[in-house]
């Protein structure tokens, strides 16, 4: 858990410090990609708590999810159908699921110690 917070803080710090910007037109893709990454990250956290963490699955999932979500958003933009809703829906519900499981693991740990 602590690694997660450390990583998050480091990332935010980097984002604040580095003068990186992108065109406003990309905000939609980035936001969907963020959601996908969040899902992967929570999934990874859950797997590591369950001691089932697999590096290959984690890394490939992290990038392919993000890319697929951004791609869906792009296709939807072209077709005039907000396809990225699918990504938001899937990742959003998985996010809550993973979070619930993580919560249970943490509470269990607290009780056993």
């Amino acid at each position, binding site marked *: 858990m602590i*690694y*997660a*917070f*450390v*990583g*998050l*803080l*480091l*990332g*935010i*710090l*980097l*984002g*604040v410090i*580095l003068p*990186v*910007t*992108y065109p*406003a*037109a*990309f*905000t939609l893709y*980035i*936001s969907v*990609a*963020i959601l996908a*990454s*969040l899902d*992967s*990250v929570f999934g*990874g*956290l859950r797997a*590591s708590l369950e001691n089932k*963490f697999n*590096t290959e699955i*984690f*890394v490939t999932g*992290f990038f392919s999810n993000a890319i697929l979500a951004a791609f869906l958003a792009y296709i939807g933009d072209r077709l005039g159908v907000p396809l990225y809703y699918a990504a938001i829906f899937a990742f959003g519900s998985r996010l809550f699921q993973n979070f619930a499981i993580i919560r249970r693991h943490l509470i269990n740990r607290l009780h056993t110690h």
Partner: protein
Amino acid sequence: MKKNAQKWFLIAAFMLVGFLITLQFKSVGSDYSFITIKTMSDLQNAVKREQDEINQMISLIEAQEEKLRNYEAAIASDGSIQEILVQDIENMKIHSGFYDLEGPGVMVLLSDSDRDLYEGEDPNNVIVHDADVLRIINDLKIAGAEALSINGQRVLSTSEIQCAGATITINQFTYAQPFVIKAIGNSDLLNAAIKAPNTYAWELKEVFGLRVESHVSERVRIPRYHGQRQLQYVSVKEGE
């Protein structure tokens, strides 16, 4: 070893997420918004209109400054601006019908049609109406007429053109047809306002068969205004 790698991957992934989130915050927080090409062109047009207006105002200012320079030059040479003021008053008097005027322009003759009516046709179709005269007067004004008269009555800003049966009342004098409208101005333009295809006068002539004639003249004479000049209700607003 395995556990260690796991740790680093998680940290890296969280770092990336944090980084992306901050980026997104920075981008969305600033003044970016989606706009369509239409909005862009609309805005560009609006900007252009405003610029045109500004340019117009600037030219207005220049005109006023020119006037001011004239006054100053008059003061410098004669010590008084009386001459220019007198000139101004003369201009005003010409505008408001104090003088008999003369200049190049057109003479328009307007009278009822002498053709036979069709079976069941409305006789109003072949009669000159007050509205016809009014529209022709307006067309002449658009063409830059500086002074106008109808049957010898100077047309001022307060002149009425009223239907009075088969006759028309102008400046409280009543006239029967034919109506003679005189206008001083650029005679080519004025003539075109009557004769050019699809003008109102052309339509009267070609469609309804009224008699509409337009004669260009180098010396159109327009008499002064003979009516009442007393003002009963208006007063000058001070302090403007």
